[in-house]
């Protein structure tokens, strides 16, 4: 890690870390024994541990002159390790909260372990911890390979990676202490949010500068999606998190938005977090690792253009479909609904483009579990985008809203699409990155695939059933004109589905553990002798000049 940095870079890394540690000290002093103080100590420990790493390698030999002729893969390797660690944590927390719904005594009567606090540790753990690290790691890989250029920074990739993980740690540990903005998927409080802005702007600049260095005349589609992800998430994060802290010494803040405007801003954020974090970024992944793994050209460049601009334009309008039949004016709901319907075709065009790319490679899908991960992910992407547009139609939403159907839909997307494409990409990336011929065990990839697929299917079918049963029970009337079921009746009816859902989650978690073991054994194996001589940036000036 540190050996690849020049001594000047080592100094700047140490200075940055000391500044972060000082910020932690300030938080600790201001916050005292409150959550802000605890987080101050956490920031100091985090920065201190990294300072120790930097100092340990401070007087190591300088990197050789030929450093720019190699891709910068160290941050990607650490990013993959962090991705898998967050996957295990986030999936375990998901399993725990799922089990709490079936067996409430698993909350153990403590404040920190109640459903309300654990649930955001699950959502943040999987979306931001697992998904976010996977996006950062793969984006660093994809942008270098498709630009044939080394990352445009030596310290900044580490800053982005570790800074982002510090944000995730602050968020998750805060929830356990009861620190929350009570905004779904934006629960982290003001100081963590400000820190994420710093990290994210660095990420954006790093990405743009790397693209500007490219030795290819054109920017590949995957980079369009990664860039859309980075840019839009920055905008969403800033607007939704504008808040005024109670004081600089206190973790609590209040949002500047009020009433239905607050709800609209929150779900504009929430829906576009799904769109640009969980969709655009992972489409970037799909556009690189699918053709690499399938060894096929992308089916249609023109279809890529149509779906990219369709997705980026239509998604922006669709957030209000989360607020059907609420205080939000009817006309805003209409716009959200109709744009969601128009969004379907660009979404399906992406999924179709992916699946048609496999024409001529279906025998590989049959034989190669890694490519099957990616293929099934594209199928789930198509399924859940259809489902999303369908559920956005107001009369359908009247049945589905507030039920487990929503939960099932989210997990069809999050497990079936996001997690499967991530595992498929990681299984493609790990042997390439560590210069191994293949994963340690193809059989374990196969086992992971079937565990994951079975887990998703059990989960999603359980939630479809429970959601629709719930929705119907809540809206059934007797002849006398009163409700036919009490809420408790519907809870009793959910019980078997909640057990099934927890079981599906358990299968998915087991699959991820198998994956961790397989990756670990692959990394430990001896490097492949042949290496990858061709896997290097284009020397400067030899190819077309960037930006032309």
């Amino acid at each position, binding site marked *: 890690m540190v050996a690849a940095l020049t001594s000047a870079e080592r100094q700047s890394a140490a200075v940055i870390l000391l500044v972060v540690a000082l910020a932690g000290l300030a938080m600790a002093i201001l916050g005292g024994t409150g959550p802000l103080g605890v987080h101050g100590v956490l920031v100091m420990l985090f920065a201190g541990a990294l300072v120790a790493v930097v100092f340990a390698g401070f007087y190591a030999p300088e990197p050789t002159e030929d450093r720019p002729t190699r891709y910068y893969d160290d941050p990607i390797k650490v990013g993959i390790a962090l991705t898998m660690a967050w996957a295990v944590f986030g999936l375990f927390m998901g399993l725990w909260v799922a089990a709490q719904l079936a067996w409430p005594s698993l909350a153990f009567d403590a404040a920190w372990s109640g459903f309300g606090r654990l649930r955001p540790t699950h959502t943040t753990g999987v979306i931001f911890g697992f998904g976010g690290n996977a996006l950062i790691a793969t984006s660093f890989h994809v942008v270098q390979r498709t630009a044939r250029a080394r990352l445009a920074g030596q310290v900044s990739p580490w800053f982005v990676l570790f800074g982002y993980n510090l944000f995730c740690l602050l968020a998750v540990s805060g929830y356990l202490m009861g620190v929350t903005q009570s905004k779904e998927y934006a629960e982290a409080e003001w100081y963590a949010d400000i820190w994420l802005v710093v990290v994210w702007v660095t990420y954006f600049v790093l990405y743009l500068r790397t693209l500007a260095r490219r030795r290819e005349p054109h920017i590949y589609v995957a980079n369009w999606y990664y860039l859309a992800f980075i840019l839009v998430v920055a905008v969403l994060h800033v607007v939704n998190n504008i808040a005024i802290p109670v004081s600089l010494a206190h973790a609590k803040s209040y949002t500047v938005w009020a009433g239905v405007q607050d709800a609209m801003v929150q779900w504009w954020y929430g829906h576009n977090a799904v769109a640009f974090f969980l969709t655009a970024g992972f489409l970037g992944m799909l556009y690189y690792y699918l053709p690499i793994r399938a060894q096929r050209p992308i089916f249609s460049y*023109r279809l890529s253009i149509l779906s990219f601009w369709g997705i980026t334009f239509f998604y922006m309008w669709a957030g209000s479909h989360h607020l059907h039949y609420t205080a939000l004016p009817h006309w805003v709901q209409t716009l959200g609904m109709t744009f969601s319907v*128009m969004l379907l075709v660009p979404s399906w065009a992406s999924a179709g483009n992916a699946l048609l790319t496999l024409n001529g490679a279906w025998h590989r899908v049959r034989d190669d579990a890694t490519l099957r991960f990616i293929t099934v992910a594209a199928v789930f992407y198509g399924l859940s985008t259809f489902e999303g547009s369908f559920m956005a139609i107001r009369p359908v939403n009247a049945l589905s809203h507030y039920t487990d159907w929503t939960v099932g839909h989210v997990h069809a997307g999050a497990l079936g699409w996001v997690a499967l494409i991530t595992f498929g990409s990681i299984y493609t990336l790990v042997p390439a990155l560590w210069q191994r011929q293949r994963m340690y065990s193809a059989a374990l990839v196969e086992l992971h695939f079937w565990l994951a697929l079975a887990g998703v299917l059990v989960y999603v079918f359980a939630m479809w059933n429970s959601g629709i049963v719930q929705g119907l029970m809540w809206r059934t009337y007797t002849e006398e004109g009163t409700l036919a079921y009490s809420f408790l009746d519907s809870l009793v009816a959910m019980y078997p589905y909640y057990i099934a859902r927890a079981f599906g989650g358990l299968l998915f978690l087991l699959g991820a553990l198998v994956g961790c073991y397989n990756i670990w054994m692959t990394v430990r194996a001896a490097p492949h002798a042949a290496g990858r001589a061709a896997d290097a940036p284009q020397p400067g000036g030899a190819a077309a000049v960037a930006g032309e």
Partner: protein
Amino acid sequence: MSETGERDPVSGRRTTGHEWNGITELDTPVPRGVLMFLIVTHVFAVLWWVLMPAWPLGTSYTQGLLGIDQRATVERELVAATARRADWMARIETAGFDAIRADAALMDVVRSTGARLFGDNCAACHGVDGTGRANYPDLTDADWQWGGGPEAIAETMRVGVNAPHPESRIAQMPAFGRDGMLDRSAVRSVAAYVYALGNPGYSTADTIDTIEAGREVFLTTCAACHGEDGTGEPAIGAPNLTDDYWLYGGDLQSIVTSVHGGRQGHMPTWDERLTDAQIRLLALYVHDLGIAEP
């Protein structure tokens, strides 16, 4: 672009001529089906915009040809739903309890509708079937702390027990031991006496002195509320101590605990959450629970 690309042997299409780390793209035109489907979704959207409230116009918005608005729709549906229930609801609200109980058809409505109301409002404490649990009364038996007729039940629901309501039913069993009104031996002896009321077998040669001492304490301290014979007084919420139903436990140790620390049960008021008719209906339902169970 196709003039620069190679031809892909599988699809027969040419690539766009670009290559990124081995990745190429075919120059396949957008399939006609995609364009058709795109048009269909757009036509659907435009039609919906024309028919429904859709686009903002400064301080107003396009109202849509159908003139539908969600707020008006809800109000209309609420009126219709109320009208649908109006017939039997009016009779629940105005007829006497005895008259309603004599009307078998109306009591069927009470039983089916009451079960939902009970499930949504009462079951969290009293259980889905109304049998209660520790510290929450069983509503299916014949033992009633505040009276078991429909009128008394409706009144308990309306004002609550030890609730902030100005007319709330108030019943506080003092903490005789903790607050120093009775010493330890008095607490023990009166508990023994009360225990023996419902368990005559407890009275033996060994315990008779304690029980007798407890009787003295009971008559001077407890009888004012629970009555000289210990059968209680529903008008003030003093429970019957001679039967085998115990809200806070009927073993000797639980009785000692109750005498020592007192008891202040709480039931919320329902007059703001439920309508008069709903309270009356629930009172009938709860009363009926007690009759249906032997």
